[in-house]
């Protein structure tokens, strides 16, 4: 596989082939977390097709190839918002081992973990589109503010404010429900 330097302008089929080999797994990972494994394959395939058709629009001074691809994938994934919503709803209903396993010896903690999972899934589903895009590019794709701004073609200030609002909602969702009402002084 030919290495593709970050920021390198790619031209022609051969370079795109190298880009595919280098980034397909990262994109699949990100998209599978958003729309599930099946739809992720469609999203990623279309992402590369769009990248190929629009390679002349790629600006290496603005973003790395992977960041650019994340932006395209995020746009494509928006068309699967119903799938994403369905998966989040299913996730909210599920109480899977991965989240509760670490609390296996503590029934109360296990119940809290299930509850937290449901609340996080609901909160994600309720986030406005931009906030969810920004949050998942930050938390899952692990892009920096400037990279997210480049990927989504929005000002960096919008990235910061969107992320701030999204995280505030998540933290609110993560706050465990009180079992014993506290008496305020």
């Amino acid at each position, binding site marked *: 596989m030919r290495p593709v330097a970050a920021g390198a302008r790619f031209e022609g*089929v*051969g370079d*795109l*082939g*190298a880009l*595919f080999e280098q980034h*397909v*797994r990262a994109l*699949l*990972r990100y998209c*599978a*977390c*958003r729309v*599930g*494994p*099946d*739809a*992720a*394959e*469609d999203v*990623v*395939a*279309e992402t*590369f*097709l*769009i990248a*190929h*058709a*629009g390679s002349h*629009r*790629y*600006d290496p001074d603005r973003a790395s190839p992977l960041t*650019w691809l994340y*932006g*395209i994938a995020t*746009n494509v994934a928006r*068309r699967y918002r*119903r*799938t994403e919503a369905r998966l*989040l709803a*299913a*996730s909210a209903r*599920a109480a*899977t081992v*991965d*989240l509760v396993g670490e609390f296996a010896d503590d029934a109360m903690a296990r119940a809290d973990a299930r509850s937290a*999972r449901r609340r*996080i899934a609901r909160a*994600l589903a309720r986030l406005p589109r931009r906030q969810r895009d920004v*949050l*998942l590019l*930050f*938390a*899952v794709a692990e892009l920096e503010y400037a990279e997210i701004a480049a990927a*989504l*073609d929005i000002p960096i200030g919008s990235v910061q404010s969107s992320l701030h609002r999204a*995280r505030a909602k*998540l*933290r609110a969702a*993560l706050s465990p429900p009180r079992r014993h009402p506290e008496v305020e002084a």
Partner: protein
Amino acid sequence: MRPIDDADLAAVRRTVTAIAGAAAEPGDAAVARVRSRVAVGRTHPRLGHRGWHNWVAVPAAAATVVAVTLVATLALRPGTDHGAQVGGPPSTEAVPSATATRGPTAPPGNVITDLGRIEGRIPLAEAVRAMVDASNGAEQLTVGPGQLLYMRTDRAERLDGALVTSVHEMWIDPDGMVPVRSVIDGRDMGVGPPMTTGPNLENPNPRWLARLTTDPDALYAKFAAINAGVKLGGAHYVPKQVSYAFRTYGPLLSPRLRAAFFKVLGKVPGGMAHRIVLSGHTYYGFVDITAGAQWEMHLLCDPETGQVVGERYGTSDQIELWHYAVVNGVDETG
């Protein structure tokens, strides 16, 4: 305000990673499927997306159109035996010579006037039986030495009330079923010398197809084996693989093999079929349950001719119809 920490991000990661399941770390099979889809432009056809910001605002139709130009670098599929490199001159297999022959034809003139409608469900077994019966009389194309398989895809989508159409033409080397020329809406996209592996169910050649088992159980196992080892199991992707096979080289199937392919569709757990009326003609639509039944993706099959004529995407109001011919060169359309 509470101090910012990463607990919320970790919770998000756990939640969405659970959605991805094992696919959170994609395997070779998933990569191969994506590579294959890119190589033949097999993503869901969606024409003329609107509202994307400029630097990624490329109509998906154009993206689909250029798919074949990627064959040169993307067609090498891992997980299969690395065989002969394919490309350059078309097949020289010793099969009967034929002049340019018009092949199975989708609805008259391939002029799409409507996107079809579902007329109700049909028992899967009944649909399979009808297509198996029709396969006996189905026309089989034979590609002679130096000849190519010409495929014309007419796509239509309803956008803002109007029917938007696109035409994609491909000239396919039967040795590996890889495109050697691609033209979209009259625009020549060009392709490089393709590499491929095989022969196998994704990259067969006529000689290999002639020897392929017609036992439905064995064939089902072969289709399932393509994606063996993935989390959802290879069987999960059988409908998608069969659909891909019909699309790419369906007209070259012998009646017995064609019937066996339909029987494979009949073995898909949870499989279903609908009657779909298009331009006054009734087709049997096998649901691609891989995509999820809610997507209403149908493989359109003609119970009168035994041919698979295209695909329909109900939820997105799109349809594509396929037409094939055997031609003597990349300048001919049959």
